[in-house]
């Protein structure tokens, strides 16, 4: 129990951040109307590809002769970035369909 309280105190800022981010997330997302739920989901999906930052950081910190880690991490980077790029492109394609009328 003490260790948990310790952990909370030492990571105070992080926990605040966590709390407010969750609230912010729910607040922002709940404003999205249902007609935009599919683009929202594919857009959010693209954002979840943000894990590739971890892959990049990992690769940059790995010794060049450690092929196991480098290979695995670059696979992680590849699949994650398909998610990122594909997600944003397809969301863009969908949303531009919603706006065709305005452009004409």
């Amino acid at each position, binding site marked *: 129990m003490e260790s948990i309280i310790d952990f909370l105190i030492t990571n105070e800022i992080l926990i605040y951040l966590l709390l407010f981010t969750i609230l912010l997330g729910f607040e922002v997302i709940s404003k999205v109307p249902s007609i935009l739920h599919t683009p929202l989901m594919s857009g959010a999906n693209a954002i979840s590809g943000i894990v590739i930052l971890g892959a990049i950081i990992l690769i940059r910190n790995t010794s060049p002769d450690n092929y196991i880690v480098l290979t695995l991490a670059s696979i992680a980077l590849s699949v994650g970035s398909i998610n990122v790029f594909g997600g944003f492109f397809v969301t863009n394609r969908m949303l531009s369909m919603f*706006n065709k009328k305005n452009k004409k």
Partner: protein
Amino acid sequence: MDKLIFLFAAFFLVWGLRLQSSPESAARGNKYAALGMFLSIFGAIIMPFENSGFNNYLWIFLPLTASSIIGYGIAKKIKMTSMPQMVSIFNGLGGLSAVLLSFIELYKTSFLGGESSLAYQMTLVLSLFIGSIAFTGSMLAFAKLDGYKWSEKLTLPYQHIINIVLLVAILYFSYQYFEVNNDFNLIYLVLGISLLYGIFFVAPIGGADMPVVISLLNSFTGLTAALTGIIFDNKVMLLGGILVGAAGTILTILMCKAMNRSLLNVIVGGFSSSGKQTVKEDQGDVKEINDSDFAVQLFYSSKVIIIPGYGLAVAQAQKLCKEIQEILETNDVEVKYAIHPVAGRMPGHMNVLLAEADVDYSKLIELEQANEEFKSTDVAVIVGANDVVNPDAIDDSSSPLFGMPILKVWESKSTVVLKRSMSAGYAGVQNPLFFRDNNKMYFGDAKDSLQRLSTELKTL
């Protein structure tokens, strides 16, 4: 410098999602979010490390370039009807990425030393577990959505017991790893069982529950992204992950509400668990309508509401819908589309399909508004939908659909149901709407039927 870049990135990600609140600004919002993502990737590439990293830029730019080309290619070619499949695959890839990263970190702490506090390792194992469910679960969801035969509702005997055993095994092996011995083979076990659990988790869930599953898996990927954010001590990752988690969670809740079922009920395995529905005796005959009568009826009404369902999406008939809408509008018929929240195979799917066919989004109305407007509607045309217009949901407390919010189409002066046959809907129940006095049936594949109707309308 890198901290500043991450700060801007975080701002653009949140602002981008904020702009999704209206169709006019959503496209701009998506570009902002993409900019935020670009900035954070850039930040991760240039951020300095204390012990001056090795960089290995070749290992970074090669995958990035290749994936951007692949991702763009898929995004450009994919059909809008296949959007749920694509979202599932992408979601699975995100999960896989997180799984690999947690695995590498565990591998490093185990073999190469480095940080290994208990909290850190627990975060890694948790991320490994959730990411694995998101990965294999999404892949199976993809198979189901794409209609592979073997992937229809699979229920093993003792399914729930097996699931619980798998969960307990994961907990046990993780505990062994943390507390007893740091044997890396335990991690392989945990990984293997977690991947298996993802399959078992999605296997019993049926086709029409897919909107819930996709949303839920999406929130899992978000959660594991947030956990990797903690692992790599990167606040943008944490933020991005939580935003996605929130989006997935909200959509899951909305979809469950729209079907009037608890999440547990969906996960446990669909309508079959709600007991056998007693087959009602003959409810009389259904009346069919022929091409010209239908066309005339539509052409000379003042207000028509179309209720599109999954059948329309399968038949790819959304463009024909738009064509009919245009013909009717030349005769001053008001045409609207009533969209049930679970129409289609993922949240909001039907709206995208209609937008693709150039239907103006102001013509798409949601459940509550539609239910008010039916009273002033002459004809409600139901295309390939069934359970969402079943009056039993209100009238019959023994129906498995009872309590589900539905479109009260029968309040309009008349209804026409376009349907292939009299077969029951996904919930496996007959729809008494078909037998009502003011209802007519128009049989055939959605595309053929609408084609026939359109041809007939043109002669008027």
